[in-house]
């Protein structure tokens, strides 16, 4: 296929050595009527694809995640976002499975997004980038999976926005998804979810350096606004119990309040740090686009308002996971998914993991979560005929 060229960084700052570029004769046509071409998809892989191409797992990253699920992140120098779960002997066992993780369309780690060059203008897209949806992200991923010559994914797994992609995969390509793990996620964004995202977007847009999204050309970055957006979002990823345990009312490097607006409290200092660290690695316009994609997500709406219809007659094996202290995508959201799957007659397991770490629990080493994931994947591997070494039996 001449439509694909390998390893040519098409956007970003050449950070992603593994990139597939789909040339303009294979555009990504978006739900909103947009057209993205050329389309670069930056990805990472871990482990080896077996001869039968039957051991591939697609990991879908969350809102501000990227393709670096494991190993060392090239920008932050920190471990990949799912280091707790991905690696030799871990549930997503790199000795057994071929793991693929790609940066979502609209992102900023090498996949085409608002910071990429718009071929029509020669300048960064900015807000001219088409508003993308979760389904658009999944369409792009499907192009990548086609590129790898993989017919059926052994599993599609991810948490939060990644979990939305998992649900969309199962609904859009049921025959290509052998098993699915939607984790700490929801089939639609609630008013509260949209509200928090809107606060974040308004914080970005209120920064004078945002310049109506054209900050790149003008050599500035709306770092303050993006940092505030991250600070408010970060609170939603934690739980009150976790914040209280970690910080309480403890003061930062001082014994008494200063009666000023310094970061007297440790929790203030922590949030400021989170905001600053975030702007180092994330693009403000990308933040607008990925939050918008989540807001538009309502899987049932594409199926006449019935989530069960999205999964009708599916053969995919599902394992739905929620966490007790997650108030961003609470267990009730996962139960709605489970009910729909049950109504559709799907094979579904559902576990609510006891944790006080809030939404972020899915990124951490939670022993019950690890055991559940391992058990589910092992049984699915047995049903798929995958030997422990990843070969086809």
């Amino acid at each position, binding site marked *: 296929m001449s439509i694909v060229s390998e390893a040519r960084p098409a956007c970003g700052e050449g950070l992603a050595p593994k990139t597939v570029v789909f040339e303009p004769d294979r555009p990504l046509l978006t739900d909103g009527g947009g057209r993205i071409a050329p389309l670069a998809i930056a990805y990472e892989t871990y482990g080896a694809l077996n001869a039968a191409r039957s051991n591939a797992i697609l990991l879908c990253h969350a809102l501000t995640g990227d393709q670096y699920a494991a190993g060392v992140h090239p920008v932050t120098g920190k471990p990949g976002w799912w280091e707790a779960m991905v690696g030799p002997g871990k549930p997503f066992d790199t000795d057994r499975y071929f793991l693929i993780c790609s940066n979502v369309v609209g992102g900023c780690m090498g996949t085409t997004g608002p910071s990429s060059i718009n071929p029509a203008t020669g300048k960064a897209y900015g807000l001219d980038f088409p508003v993308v949806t979760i389904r658009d992200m999944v369409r792009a991923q499907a192009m990548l999976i086609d590129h790898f010559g993989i017919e059926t994914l052994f599993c599609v797994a991810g948490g939060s926005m990644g979990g939305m992609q998992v649900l969309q995969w199962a609904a859009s390509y049921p025959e290509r998804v052998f098993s699915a793990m939607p984790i700490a996620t929801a089939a639609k964004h609630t008013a509260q979810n949209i509200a928090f995202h809107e606060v974040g977007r308004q914080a970005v847009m209120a920064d004078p350096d945002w310049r109506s999204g054209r900050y790149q050309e003008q050599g500035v970055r709306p770092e303050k606004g993006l940092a505030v957006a991250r600070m408010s979002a970060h609170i939603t990823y934690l739980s009150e119990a976790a914040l209280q345990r970690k910080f309480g009312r403890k003061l930062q490097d001082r014994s008494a309040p200063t009666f000023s607006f310094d970061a007297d409290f440790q929790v203030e200092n922590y949030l400021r740090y989170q905001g600053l660290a975030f702007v180092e690695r994330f693009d403000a316009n990308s933040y607008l686009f990925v939050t918008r994609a989540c807001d538009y997500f309502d899987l049932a709406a594409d199926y006449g308002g019935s989530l069960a219809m999205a999964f009708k007659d599916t053969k995919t094996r599902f394992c*739905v996971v929620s966490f007790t202290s997650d108030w961003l995508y609470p267990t009730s959201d996962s139960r709605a998914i489970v009910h729909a799957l049950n*109504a559709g007659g799907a094979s579904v397991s559902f576990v609510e993991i006891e944790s006080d770490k809030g939404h972020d629990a899915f990124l951490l080493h939670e022993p*019950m979560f690890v055991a559940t994931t391992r058990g589910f994947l092992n*049984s699915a591997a047995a049903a798929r005929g995958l030997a422990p070494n990843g070969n086809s039996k």
Partner: protein
Amino acid sequence: MNFTPAREAPEQSAQPLDQPRLDLAVIADMVASGARVLDVGCGDGALLQLLAQKKGVDGRGVELSQRGVNECVAKGLSVIQGDADTDLADYPDDGFDYVILSQTLQATRRPRAALANMLRIGRRAIVSFPNFGYWRVRTQLAVTGRMPVTGHLAYRWHDTPNIHLCTIRDFVELVDQLGARIERGVALDRSGAPIRFNAPWWVWNLFGEQAVFLLERGGGQR
């Protein structure tokens, strides 16, 4: 052997989840090969595994305890965390051929609603429960004047999860009220051996320590 307190937190459960249960083989015998089965209160999945091995069923489970669900998922069973009292309502009509409630009915808050839901979700329901009409239970109450505590009903009155105990006669009456039909019934004696089917009712109700019923939805229902 105790009765599985399906609604009780598992970590404090008095019953080890891996203990084999006498009624499982009797239940398995009632299920047709290759059927679609929903096991409500499936514990560690022992019955689902037995049904998969012996009858090749397409099985699903509902279990309240996180420990039970995790064990089931680790075994490759499709089990969701849920409660017989609240979650059966969400299942569609006729989603399954059989809905099984094994040693759990007496621990539900609303046994009648649970049974009605089961017969809505599946054409057939299989229910096993401890018989409070068993002669040793009657004797304890009559002689000592206190709530019975037996090997099967091992809890004291104030800490038991078994809040809706019934006798075989009580159960048969409830089935009748729901317009369902008893297709098969087996009472198990103290040794776990089935009492012969053609024994009169009062014999069942007196000598059966537990009972297993295969019910079919009545034509008049729904």
